[in-house]
């Protein structure tokens, strides 16, 4: 099942990152795709903040992998744009995927063949200057369950947001 989070503003993208962050554990793999400027790194920053990575999380395009220490888990932030599949294969990414932390891969579709069997695909589509459509496609039972939980979290979030909106305009 596919799960879609509509994010009309950057704040709503951050809200999605917060909801997702509540589900992660060791060995989580988030395979992120989206065009240049879609906000993959922005999403990664929001996600990192949500799992308690202190300080600046900046682009890993040049260095390919940046490692951080979060509140409970290490965070491995990758950008595989400038790698070929063969080069990525030689980097030994498996050690990260099956490691102690959470891996977020930008431009993940480039290395589709060497991603672990279970992962959550997250596609960020640009629908306007600040609005984004975030499409999650789970691979494996664990991530299918995540999508069901995300659906509940989305409902809670929207209800909460609407209530705040109403109280502000009373």
């Amino acid at each position, binding site marked *: 099942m596919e799960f879609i989070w509509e994010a009309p503003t950057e704040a709503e993208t951050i809200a999605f990152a917060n909801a997702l962050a509540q589900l992660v554990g060791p060995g989580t793999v988030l395979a992120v795709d989206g065009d240049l400027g879609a906000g993959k*790194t922005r999403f990664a920053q929001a996600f990192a903040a949500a799992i308690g990575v202190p300080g600046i999380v900046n682009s890993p395009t040049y260095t390919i992998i940046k490692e951080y220490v979060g509140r409970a888990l290490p965070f491995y932030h990758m950008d595989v744009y400038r790698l070929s599949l063969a080069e990525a294969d030689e980097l030994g990414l498996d050690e990260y995927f099956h490691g102690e932390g959470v891996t977020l891969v930008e431009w993940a579709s480039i290395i589709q063949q060497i991603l672990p069997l279970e992962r959550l695909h997250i596609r960020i589509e640009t629908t306007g200057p600040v609005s984004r459509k975030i499409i999650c496609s789970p691979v494996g039972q664990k991530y299918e369950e995540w999508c069901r939980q995300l659906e509940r979290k989305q409902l809670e979030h929207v209800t909460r947001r609407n209530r705040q909106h109403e109280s502000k305009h009373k």
Partner: protein
Amino acid sequence: MSASNNTANVAKAANAGSLSPNSSYLLLAIETSCDETSVAVVRDGRNVLSNIISSQIDTHRQFGGVVPEIASRKHVESITIIVEEAIREADISLENIDAVAVTQGPGLIGALLVGVVAAKSLSLALDVPLIGTHHIAGHIYANHLIGDIVYPALALVVSGGHTELVLLEQEGKFRIIGRTRDDAVGEAYDKVARALQFPYPGGPYVDKLAQEATEEVVLPRSWLEPDSYDFSFSGLKSAVLAEINRSRMKGESPDFSALARGFQNSVIDVVTVKAMKAAKEFGVKQMLLCGGVAANKGLRERLASLCGDVGLPLLIPTNKLCTDNAAMIAAAADLKWRRGEFSTLDLKAEPILSLEDWSVGS
């Protein structure tokens, strides 16, 4: 790892500290933090006898052409050849080496490991001290290979993976006062180059296109908070993409050279204005430009002109010394050699390594 190995290094450390200032020494340095395998032989921390960079040697003569070297296996394939080439070109023999320096971090763990293992092996086999070195300290001290650094100095580090303003209140003491919150300058150039349909890495094409442009699409400047020396370039990248989209929606073809000029001017304005402001606030006596993007013509010219206006001396390494290379690692390692601050053989490659913590005396 036996305890006696560490003891041997500590003993060496004591010896080096007591070397007379006149005694000459030879340092072999290794850099494998990212794409390049590089080995240099440097006399007395400043005199470069050889500085071999894998992508710049005649690969057809040496081996079957294996660049770029992102994968650590590629570093493994080339490290021995490049060490030999560095020794040969320096016209010395391995036994003449007095110390071995290596990039300890930051960088890709697999790539760093190759250099670290090679350096440890050489240190152990030759029984000479090992000096784990910070990659960015290397970029900054590349300036010491072309001139004298006067303190306090301010370094503007602009490369593919880094954009930082580093204050050096005294020799070997690093304080980061600003850094990028998203893309490094080099990344921003390469991403805009992608939007302008240049192949990766396209930064140099954007520089060239901007130089040749007759028109400019004026793009926003990202100054962040008034008192911040941090940088942000991802909004600028989005502005370029938005301009391209706007043109296409109107059925026009976007003016790539005017966009390149607009992008370049925005980046250069922000980095140079922040650098000059910091130079004034901290009362520095010299500006140091370094990192791969220091080869950018537009940036060099603007910074030179702004420094000239206020009479602030500016150092910029040659293009070869701006890119990732081992001579710069030797230049930074010299700081530690002169203070007898050596690493033990249990030195670890550190993908995240703090520049400030690498300062001398810490």
